């Protein structure tokens, strides 16, 4: 999830290339397909958490990734992470045409790790629109959650106030509070474990006075 504190990777988004059908002599017609290349910082492959963007009349988007596995000497390979994700319910009508979208790591068919380049293939088959594209493309890196580290950071931020108050004949508050806590816990236990059985061993001849305990 792209939390507020996770920054997008700085990437350069190339201008979109609209594919044309036919050649320039007979009159090229728009094919409804457009390719947007997003180059990630050179030499620093990214593990992608999420790709977010704002739609502008694109009907379907395909996400392809150029991945280079570390340690392997071979060239980087292209793979399809997501094919034809629908952004508009109906390519001819407005619904979804200007929405903000996210493509999450979990939606992708391959692990988006060690990615050096991202290619977005946009499709808009309807002739109703003059143009289509994606805007505000952001790629968020995968951040390993490290709960222990977080907790200890938080703890070390606390300033320990270690003052010994001036006690004059009064017992140490620490020992008093711990013994009170013990007593309270005992009463809780007693409350929940009440029995109707009498505490026989302290009853001597019907009398409860401890000074009259029989020693036989």
């Amino acid at each position: 999830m792209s939390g507020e504190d996770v920054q997008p990777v700085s990437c350069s988004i190339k201008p979109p290339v609209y594919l044309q059908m036919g050649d320039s002599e007979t009159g090229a017609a728009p094919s409804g397909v457009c390719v947007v290349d997003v180059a990630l910082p050179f030499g620093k492959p990214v593990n992608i958490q999420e790709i977010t963007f704002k739609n502008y009349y694109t009907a379907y988007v395909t996400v392809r990734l150029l991945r280079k596995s570390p340690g392997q000497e071979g060239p980087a390979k292209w793979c399809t992470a997501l094919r034809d994700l629908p952004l508009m319910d109906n390519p001819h009508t407005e619904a979804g045409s200007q929405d903000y979208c996210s493509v999450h790591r979990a939606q992708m068919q391959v692990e988006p790790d060690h990615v050096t380049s991202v290619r977005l293939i946009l499709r808009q088959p309807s002739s109703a629109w003059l143009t289509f594209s994606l805007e505000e493309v952001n790629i968020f890196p995968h951040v390993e959650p490290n709960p222990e580290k977080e907790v200890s950071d938080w703890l070390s931020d606390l300033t320990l106030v270690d003052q010994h108050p001036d006690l004059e004949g009064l017992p140490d508050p620490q020992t008093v509070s711990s013994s009170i806590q013990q007593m309270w816990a005992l009463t809780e236990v007693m409350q929940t474990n009440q029995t109707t059985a009498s505490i026989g061993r302290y009853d001597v001849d019907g009398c409860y006075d401890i000074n009259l305990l029989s020693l036989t």
Partner: protein
Amino acid sequence: MMDDGSELSPTVAHIVRRLRGSHLHSQIERRAKDCLHQPEIKLDSLKEDVRSFLKTSGWERQLQNAVYRELQLPPSHPAAPPEHLKEPLAYMRKAQASWEKRVLKSLNSMSTELGVPLARMRPAAEQKELANKWNEMGTDEPDLTSFRPVYAPKDFLEVLIGLRNPNHDGSEAVGVRSHWGLIQVPLNVRDIPQLRRAYSELSLTTGQLGIDDHAHIHPVIVEQDSAAAQQYSRQGCSTGLRADLWALILNSNNQPQDVMHYEQLTAGVIQHDLLVDNLIYKDVKLTASNDDYYFVFEDFLYQVLLCFSRDTAVLEHFKYNSATPPRSFIQGERMSRVIPFHGFSMYVAPLCFLYNEPSKLYSVFREMYIRYFFRLHSISSSPSGIVSLCLQFERLLQTHLPQLFYHLRQIGAQPLRIAFKWMVRAFSGYLSTDQLLLLWDRILGYDSLEVVAVLAAAVFAFRAENLMEVTSLGSAEAVLADLSTLKVMPLIQVFLFATAI
């Protein structure tokens, strides 16, 4: 594929944020604290015991109703700015903003022309006088001749007709997909096969209240279940239960703080006089007071509408509307209002048949306005918005009554020009009241204003034979002038389920 769990938790977090700090939240907290004294609550099963207590005492149901209400609101993407949540399409936001500016300008120039300030504090004597005749404001006959309504529905229609998407390729003017109607915006609207699936409870074989009055009734009011009440309302509410059912669906339970809020608003009316008040007076006098069914409620209408125009809680709903409310300052205190147009009071009038207690009437009306009526006079891409309704009406007519549409177009009687005034008022003032309430049952039951567009098309279908004979816009209007004898549900049922496709 997408992990559904991760999709759900931001929604849950969002709803929790919305409900935290609400009055319901503090009430539930207080009840939970109080119940700790009870013997059946044990320490080691504290969580489960408190939960089951809240369930049996009905508080869980209230929480469910509140969550259900929250779920009706649109989901949002974290990167989306607030205006995008209101209205995702940039050109619609722009159109709405410039429309509002126009309306405000008109109001301001009226203020300057007539020399009446937008807002003024009433002198003490006037305040006392108004407080005394609070329940009979209708007897007042102030001079309203110089006040004109700020705009009429037909002015708004012209704005909608002019709406264009800058990215839309309109070069295919005449073609298979050509649209004969006036709305030129490519919104997605449902056709009859889709409507049949969505409105299956209205099929010809399902009993409807008002036609088949022995329809089986479920006691949802005893359960106080909002969602069940909504489902029940789809087949119409019986007259005796309608008031309670609508209040339940709208989650408007007239708590003490609602009564207090209403009283604060009435105090505001007495203290300050707004220019808009005169427009409200005029509107009520021109529309509701002239109507055979509604003139008896004239005083109620003043009470409700004058308070409504001062209610800043209505501001909340503007988060989901592309409109930004006009502001005026009265001695430093900001008030934001809805500017009424000609016929606005007809939104309130039918509700007077259901609720006779002013604060209850007010809170139900306000909730209806926030959920539905505001969409009828603002520009948005919502499926319940007036733009979608107009387009849907035209599409239904063109697809299923092409000869009629073509004929009317040829004689210069574009169907939307006749039907628009019905739809903007959700048919209030055009149908007889019992029929109108049956229509509004379905608006609440399906949480959508789509039935209004469907009914408009069904009315044209019903009068198609007569309309084919007419030769001018005037005579077409005359054929469709009187809808008071129409039975709403048979018309809709026949149009949706008996039309050949």
